[in-house]
C-alpha cells in the first residue's frame, strides 16, 4: 500500500503549476469563453513541446511512457487553473483508443501526431435516448465490399469542433443497446457526409454534434476487432474519467484556496467574515469533502497503474465522490463569496460551472452509482 508520489511526479507537478501560472489566467478564460474553440492553439502547441501529450504513450511513437500517477499530477494542476486545452479528449480518449486497439500501422499513423500536438483526435459515442450508456448505439455501419458505410448521429462530442479525426462507435451487428456488435472506426472530419454542428458547454469549452450520412470508411480504419469495440471504449473512458477526477480535485483545492483567502479579507460587522462560525464550518466541510475525493482519486489511479480487477469499480467510486464533492464545494464557495460569486467579474463562478460540466461528463452520479451496483454484484 503506497500512495506516495515520487520526486519525478512532484517535479512534473511543479513545472505544470508554473506553466499554468505563466501561460494561463482567469482573464484568458474570460476571453476564450467567446471563442468557438474555447482554447488556444498556441498554448496547445507549447504543451506538446513540453512533451505532455506523450505522457502515457510508448517511446517508439515519441512518448514518455510514464505511469498514470503522472496523468493525475498533470490534470490536477490543469484543474487548479481551469486550463481549457483539450488534453483529456485527445490523449485519454481518441489517442488512447488507437493505442489500446489500433494496428501497428494505425498507431504509427496517428500517435506521433497526437504527441506532437499536430493531430487532433477525439471519441464520439453518446447518442440521443442513450443518456450516458456507451453501449447504446443506433449509428449503423454497413459493409459493402471493402468499405463500411456509416450513418447516425453523435451528441456532445468532447472537443469535437477542433478534431481532425474521430473514433466513433457504430453498430455492425446485434441490437441498439447490446454491448456486442459495436465496432470502433476512425473517421476523418473532412470525409464526405460528415456534418459538424458546433456546441458550447457551460464552462466555455467546445463540443459538437456529429452527423454521418452514408460516410464511406475503408475496412482498414476499423480499430480493434469488428463487433468488439465496447470493451476498448469502456476502458478508455475509465482512463478519461479517472483523469477528469484528478482535474476536479485540482479545481476543488483552488476553490477552497480562493474562498479561504476571501473569508480572511472580506470585512463585515467590523471583522473578517472568516471569524464567524457559519462560514468557518462551511469551509471545514469543503476541506473534508476534498480530502475524501483526493483519496478516491488516488485509489482509482493506482488501480489503473496496477491493472487490478477493481479498476472500473474504483473509477465509479472516484467519479461519484468527486462529482458530489466538487459540486458541494463550489456551491458553498459561490455562496460564501456572496454577490461577487454570481458574476463573471469574480473568478469563483468559473469553478461552479466547471463542476457542473464535470459532474455530467462521462456519466453523472446516478449513472455511476448504477454502474457501481452492477460491478459490485448487488
Amino acid at each position, binding site marked *: *500500500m*503506497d*500512495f*506516495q*508520489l515520487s520526486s519525478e511526479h512532484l517535479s512534473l507537478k511543479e513545472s505544470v503549476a508554473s506553466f499554468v501560472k505563466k501561460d494561463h489566467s482567469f482573464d484568458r478564460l474570460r476571453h476564450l469563453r467567446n471563442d468557438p474553440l474555447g482554447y488556444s492553439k498556441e498554448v496547445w502547441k507549447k504543451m506538446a513541446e513540453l512533451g505532455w501529450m506523450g505522457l502515457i504513450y510508448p517511446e517508439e511513437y515519441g512518448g514518455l511512457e510514464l*505511469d498514470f*500517477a503522472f496523468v493525475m499530477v498533470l490534470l490536477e494542476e490543469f484543474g487548479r487553473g481551469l486550463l481549457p486545452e483539450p488534453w483529456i479528449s485527445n490523449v485519454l480518449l481518441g489517442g488512447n483508443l488507437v493505442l489500446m486497439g489500433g494496428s501497428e500501422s494505425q498507431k504509427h499513423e496517428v500517435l506521433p501526431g497526437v504527441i506532437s500536438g499536430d493531430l487532433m483526435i477525439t471519441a464520439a459515442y453518446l447518442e440521443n435516448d442513450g443518456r450516458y450508456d456507451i453501449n447504446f448505439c443506433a449509428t449503423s455501419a454497413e459493409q459493402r465490399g471493402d468499405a463500411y458505410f456509416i450513418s447516425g448521429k453523435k451528441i456532445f462530442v468532447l472537443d469535437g469542433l477542433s478534431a481532425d479525426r474521430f473514433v466513433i462507435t457504430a453498430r455492425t451487428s446485434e441490437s441498439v443497446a447490446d454491448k456486442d456488435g459495436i465496432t470502433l472506426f476512425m473517421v476523418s472530419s473532412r470525409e464526405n457526409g460528415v456534418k459538424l454542428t458546433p456546441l458550447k458547454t457551460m464552462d466555455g469549452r467546445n463540443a459538437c454534434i456529429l452527423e454521418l450520412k452514408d460516410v464511406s470508411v475503408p475496412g482498414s480504419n476499423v480499430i480493434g476487432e469488428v463487433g468488439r469495440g465496447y470493451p476498448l471504449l469502456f476502458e478508455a473512458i475509465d482512463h478519461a474519467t479517472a483523469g477528469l477526477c484528478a482535474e476536479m480535485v485540482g479545481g476543488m483545492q483552488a476553490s*477552497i484556496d480562493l474562498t*479561504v483567502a476571501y*473569508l*480572511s479579507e472580506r470585512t463585515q460587522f467590523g*471583522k*473578517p467574515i*472568516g*471569524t464567524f*462560525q457559519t*462560514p*468557518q*464550518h462551511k*469551509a*471545514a*466541510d469543503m*476541506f*473534508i469533502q476534498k*480530502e*475524501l*475525493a*483526493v*483519496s*478516491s482519486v*488516488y*485509489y482509482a*489511479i*493506482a*488501480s489503473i*497503474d*496496477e491493472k*487490478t480487477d*477493481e479498476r472500473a469499480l474504483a473509477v*465509479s*467510486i472516484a467519479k*461519484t*465522490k468527486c462529482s458530489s464533492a466538487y459540486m458541494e464545494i463550489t456551491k458553498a464557495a459561490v455562496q460564501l463569496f456572496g454577490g461577487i460569486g454570481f458574476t463573471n467579474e469574480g473568478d469563483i463562478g468559473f469553478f461552479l460551472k466547471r463542476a457542473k460540466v464535470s459532474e455530467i461528463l462521462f456519466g453523472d452520479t*446516478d449513472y455511476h*452509482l*448504477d454502474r*457501481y*451496483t452492477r460491478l*459490485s454484484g*448487488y
Partner: protein
Amino acid sequence: MKVSYSSDEERFREEVRKWFEDNTPSDVKDQTLGGSTLEHGLMFKWHKTLYEKGWIVPEFPKELGGAGLSETEQFIFNYEYSHCGAPRLKTKLVSLGMLAPLLLQHGTKEQQDRFIPDMLSGKTIWCQGFSEPNAGSDLASLNLKAVLEGDHFVLNGQKTWTSMADHADWIFLLVRTDSSGKKQEGISFLLADLKTPGITIRPIEALTDHAPFCEVFFDDVRVPKENLVGKMGEGWKLAGALLQHERLNAFPVGELIYAIETVRKNSGKTIYRGKPLIQDPTFRRKLAALEVDCNSLLYTFFRILSQLKIGSAPGPEASFLKVYGSELYRRVMDLNIEVLGPYGQSWYNLEEFDNSIHQATMGWVNSTSLTIWGGSSEIQRTVIATQVLKLPRK
C-alpha cells in the same frame, strides 16, 4: 503508487484475520453494532484472551508488552480486529490507548512500573476524568479543585461523562491547582485510586438504557503528591498530547466497513415484494452511495498510512477523520435500521426476536453519541477552520 499490500504484510493480514476468526467468541462478536452494550464480564474475558496472545497493545515495543508492529501492521491489525466484528475494548481504550503512552513520555519511572503492567493484564481498569458539568467543549474552564496540603492534594468538585467509572479502579484527572492566571495554566494532571474515601460515583442512564458513563464526586479526597504526572500546571499541555492521540485513533474504520457489510448482507436476505431488498431500485441506490463514501474513507486511511510511513504524522487535519467517520457511521446505522422495516422500532424483545434486530436498534441509538464525544463535530469543524485552513480567530 500501489493499492496492494506487500507479500509480508499480506501474510500478516491473513494471520491476524484467521486468528480473530478462530478466537473471537460469538457472544463477543455479535455485540459489536450495538455499541457500548457488551457485558463487562465478557469484556474482561476478551481482554485476557488478547493479553495472553500478546496482542493487547500490539503497537507497543516488545519490551513494553507489545508486539512491536510497524505503522502498516498496526493499521492491518486494527482493521482486521474490528472487521471481524470484535468490539472496541473499553478496558484498554483509556488505559493503554491514552494514559500509558502519556506515562511513557511524561511519567516517572516509578509511575510507569507501578501502573503499566496492570493495565496490560487488565487487572487495573482506568477511566478518564476530564469533563465537568461546566467544562465540556470548553474544557479549560474545569474547576475540580486540588489544594496541596503537606504530602497530599485535597480534591473537591465533580467530573462527569466518565465512561466506565463504575467498573474502574483508577481515574486520571485534570484538576485546578491555580485560579490566578490564564485558565489553561492552572491545570494539573493527577492519578487517583477510586477507592479513596470521599469519592462517590453515580451512573448516568443513557438513551441506550445502559449506563456507559457516570458522574464522579470528590469530597475532601486526599491524593498522594507522587500521583502528579508532569509538573504542577502542565496538565493542559499533557491533555493536549493525550487527546491528539485519541483523535488519531478516534475512528475505527474497520468497524465502519463491518457495519456497511452487515447492511449489505442483511439487505440481501430481506425479502421485499418477492425479491431481495438489495434489488429494490431505491434501496440499492442508497446502499451504493454509502458504500462509495465508506470506501473513500478507507482509502483516506491508506493515504494517511503512506504519509506515516515516511514519517509525516498528520496534525490537526486528522480531525476530519473523526467528523466524517462518525457522521458517516450514523448514516450507515440509519440504513441498517431501515433494512428491518417494521422491526426497526423494536426495543430489546430479546426473547422474541433475533439478536441482530436488537443490535441494529441499539446501534442506531448509540451512534447518536459518536458525533458528540471525543470532540463534537462542531468543535472539530472549528479546529479544521482555524488550525488547518487558518481562518482568522478574531
